[in-house]
């Protein structure tokens, strides 16, 4: 019989139960989805790294590593393999000049994930090409490919279409945000073929894979061991500092970013449950009392009501797991959002172990909430339990002592007292609105910020048409002559040690206004020659006039320079200086890149040009990035609206049920439905107004937090356009108004006769 009551009561409170189930499902679903995302990415990328032999350390030396040096490295305790590698950007014949392929040759065995054709064979004569590039360009195994590097050509058959973790994120440099296989991909050849065709025996890189003993050592220890083995200082990059790995790991760090949103949902879900269960138990108090008076044991009654929380938690969690898979699949799947960023073969979904624990705790907590709610109502004797739940007495508010109080309308007084009397309900409504506001401001603000960032790059910083990458072996005089003839700006980029960090020292000559440098306020900066300009990320603790020290890899010499200012660096962590300043400091440098107004096709045939890419090609990849950004924004805004609607509707209905008698009394006195509706909506509007006042700065705060988290990758300026403010406020008010109107409509159905019959 009690079971029948269980179902009937659940049916009576169906709106509340459905809301609770949805909130728990969304809370768990979003929490699980985001955590599954980073966890699955980690598992899948780790598998891919393992399968394709991702190097633990990379050593760089522009003068190149000899076979003897590689052998010395192999002899280091803990080194499993140390293979020399060469990589250069080349053009593919028959393709647009903007299309670049990164040509790689690595000694030893190269482990590919082969999707078509053959795997790596060090004696084979041909290419292993990116399967995504092949797919875009309709290239098949067995097709002939000719690559041009400088003035040299290398021709061969496609032996296999492959993926490799080295190109998990296949971008041409830090200026390319997103992979675009139409313009950039990778290709591998054997070192032997490279040597035979273009006569190169130059390996500026060594990839080291270590065993556990080596991996236990920190980077500085490894650096010391390597330097001791080679007898000189070498640039050692651990995989943690290597762009592909750190960016992929950065995606994992989405767990920090992602946790803000899911935790917010989960918290609101649990809080909604607390408020709702307490109110249901309060409403059911006389029934609880009746059951007790009839002779049911406290344990039976407790079990009866506790089962509501458990059932809601169980259904909510089950739906949450399904939703979690859905959310994760939107991001982690071969057709998902991450597939535009990562080129990997594995897209399996995994639930992190701690999520099961969190779900179990949530379920236990929800059950506990019901238990405590009913326990509270069961206190004392059966007679006590039979008495209806008496809310706390109303105490006059401080404002009531002021003159302004008497001037307030009845509605305002009623609402003000109602809000302060039902603090938990009001706080929950406020939390829902603040959450909604944070998500909308966060989403739209991120979009504004990224748009502003890209527009800063496209319209302000990059004032060139083509970026030319200069070959390592180029003759500096020839390059400078070309730069002068074509009125090009140039930069020299050198890897340096700055404190504990590896940074880029960038030496600029920007006299032709092709590349612009900006400060923190995005204002253009002319470089003075008497000092250097660390980027904003390196500016912590530094002020203008301080002296800083840095040294280049491969040399023991320490350079000291005065800080002349700070610059916004688009991507890399760097220290910028003028060419004159570099000369004054005695830095030996070679031009790395030129910024010119000539189109890529107009500058072919120069031996010193390693590759050239138009600004437009780079900017086009940003479009893909912005498309993903917009999807994310849309998800956030929809999440915000769902959150707002569910929280507000649930609390609105709860408040309506609680005030049913009051509303009926107002109706009997003669208040029209419209009047009562206005009362209900105006309370929502007050809370929305307060929520917006809190939510707006909170949203900006969350956004700032996200920017701090992203600061490792980009130096972003927080931008929030007036439209974002307006849309955020309007959407939040819109949700509140719509839900308020929906709840207010219910007052038409108030049965005055029924409502006023019951006992006080």
């Amino acid at each position, binding site marked *: 019989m009690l079971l029948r009551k269980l179902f009937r009561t659940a049916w009576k409170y169906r709106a509340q139960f459905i809301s609770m189930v949805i909130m728990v499902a969304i809370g768990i679903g979003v929490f699980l989805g985001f955590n599954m995302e980073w966890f699955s990415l980690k598992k899948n990328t780790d598998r891919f790294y393992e399968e394709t032999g991702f190097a633990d350390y990379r050593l760089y030396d522009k003068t190149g590593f000899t076979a003897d040096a590689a052998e010395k490295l192999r002899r280091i305790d803990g080194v499993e393999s140390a293979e020399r590698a060469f990589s250069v950007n080349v053009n593919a014949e028959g393709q647009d000049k903007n299309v670049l392929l990164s040509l790689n040759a690595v000694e030893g065995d190269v482990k590919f994930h082969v999707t078509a054709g053959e795997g790596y064979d060090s004696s084979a004569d041909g290419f292993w090409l990116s399967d995504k590039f092949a797919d875009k360009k309709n290239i098949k195994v067995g097709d002939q490919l000719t690559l041009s590097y400088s003035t040299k050509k290398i021709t061969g058959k496609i032996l296999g279409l492959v993926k490799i973790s080295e190109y998990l994120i296949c971008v041409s440099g830090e200026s390319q945000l997103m992979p675009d296989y139409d313009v950039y991909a990778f290709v591998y050849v054997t070192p032997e073929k490279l040597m035979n065709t273009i006569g190169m025996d130059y390996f500026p890189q060594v990839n080291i894979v270590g065993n556990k003993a080596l991996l236990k050592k920190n980077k500085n220890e490894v650096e010391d061991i390597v330097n001791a083995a080679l007898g000189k200082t070498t640039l050692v990059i651990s995989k943690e500092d290597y762009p592909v790995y750190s960016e992929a790991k950065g995606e994992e760090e989405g767990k920090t970013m992602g946790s803000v949103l899911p935790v917010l949902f989960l918290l609101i879900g649990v809080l909604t449950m607390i408020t709702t269960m307490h109110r249901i138990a309060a409403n059911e108090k006389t029934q609880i009392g009746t059951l007790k008076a009839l002779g049911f044991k406290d344990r039976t009654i407790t079990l009866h009501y506790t089962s509501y929380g458990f059932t809601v938690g169980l259904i909510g969690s089950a739906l949450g797991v399904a939703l979690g898979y859905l959310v994760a699949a939107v991001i982690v799947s071969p057709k998902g959002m991450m597939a535009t960023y990562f080129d990997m073969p594995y897209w399996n979904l995994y639930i992190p172990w701690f999520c099961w624990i969190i779900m179990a705790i949530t379920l236990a907590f929800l059950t506990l909430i019901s238990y405590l709610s009913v326990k509270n109502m069961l206190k004392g004797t059966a007679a006590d339990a039979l008495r209806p739940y008496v809310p706390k007495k109303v105490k006059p508010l401080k404002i009531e002592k002021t003159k302004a109080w008497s001037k307030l309308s*009845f509605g305002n007084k009623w609402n003000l007292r109602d809000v302060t009397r039902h603090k938990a309900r009001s706080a929950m409504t406020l939390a829902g609105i603040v959450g909604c506001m944070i998500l909308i401001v966060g989403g739209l603000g991120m979009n504004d910020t990224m748009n502003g960032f890209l527009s800063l790059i496209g319209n302000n910083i990059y004032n060139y048409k083509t970026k030319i990458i200069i070959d390592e072996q180029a003759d500096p005089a020839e390059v400078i002559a070309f730069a002068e003839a074509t009125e090009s700006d140039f930069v020299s980029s050198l890897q340096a040690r700055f404190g504990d960090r590896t940074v880029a020292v960038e030496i600029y000559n920007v006299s032709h206004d092709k590349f612009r440098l900006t400060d923190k306020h995005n204002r253009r900066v002319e470089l003075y020659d008497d000092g250097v300009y660390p980027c904003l990320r390196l500016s912590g603790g530094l002020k203008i006039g301080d002296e800083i020290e840095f040294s280049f890899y491969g040399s023991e010499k320490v350079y000291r320079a005065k800080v002349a200012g700070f610059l916004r660096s688009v991507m890399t962590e760097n220290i910028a200086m003028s060419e004159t300043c570099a000369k004054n400091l005695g830095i030996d440098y070679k031009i790395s890149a030129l910024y010119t107004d000539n189109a890529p096709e107009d500058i072919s045939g120069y031996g010193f040009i390693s590759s050239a890419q138009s600004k437009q090609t780079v900017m086009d990849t940003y479009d893909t990035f912005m498309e993903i950004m917009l999807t994310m924004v849309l998800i956030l805004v929809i999440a915000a609206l769902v959150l707002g609607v569910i929280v507000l509707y649930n609390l609105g209905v709860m408040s309506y049920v609680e005030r049913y008698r*009051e509303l009926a009394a107002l109706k009997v006195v*003669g208040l029209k439905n419209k009047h009562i509706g206005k009362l209900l909506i105006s309370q929502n509007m007050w809370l929305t107004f307060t929520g917006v006042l809190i939510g707006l700065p909170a949203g900006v705060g969350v956004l700032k937090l996200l920017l701090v988290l992203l600061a490792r990758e980009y130096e972003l300026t927080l931008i929030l356009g007036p439209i974002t403010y307006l849309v955020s406020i309007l959407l939040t008010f819109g949700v509140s108004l719509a839900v308020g109107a929906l709840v207010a409509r219910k007052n038409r159905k108030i049965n005055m006769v029924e409502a*006023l019959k019951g006992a006080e």
Partner: protein
Amino acid sequence: MKVVEFEKITRSYTSGEHVLNALDGIDMSLEDGKFVVVLGQSGAGKSTMLNLLGGLDTPTSGKITVNGRDISRLNENQLAEYRASEVGFVFQFYNLIPTLTVYENVALVKEIAPNALDAEKILDEVGLKDHMKNFPAELSGGEQQRVSIARAICKNPKILLCDEPTGALDSETGVIVLKLLLSMARNYGKTIVIVTHNQNIAKMADVVIRLKNGKILSYDVQPSPLSADEVEW
């Protein structure tokens, strides 16, 4: 002058195939300024009659005229206007707004009733001037019912409708409240209809209507009703 007229009023409730006539073809009329008591056992139709008269419910068939106006065909808004201006309710369980003070509960009606009286004056008359700033929960049952009476009178309606107004009070308090109710109604010239089980109250009425099974059993006009002090409680 007739202030209320019921013509063949039926109010039926349907539950599945079963139809229950709470009021079954009632005809009756009430004179202006009279004190009317409606008696009957539970389920006789007393409250239904009061609810129809108060515009809380509409009849299944028949016509109710109040002050010459047919209220049986009014829509929701018109009924709300009717409740705001023509009738005042006093309930057994007071039905005050817990979040409004005594004064605000009474003054509330000024927002909707076109001819509302001065709330402070009425509260003074019901003896609650010193409790105006209290909330309902801080008052005794008798005091709460006095607030309810003040609220009903403050609207300055033509008719006061009372559903067991002393039902939740002890007999001593009940008599005090009843006396107050009658004196206020008389002072302000209101027609007052009280629905009750209490036979003693009927002794004070100008008209006593007895209901049974949704029909009028008797309609007695008492030429010399007793005063509250003359009734043995």
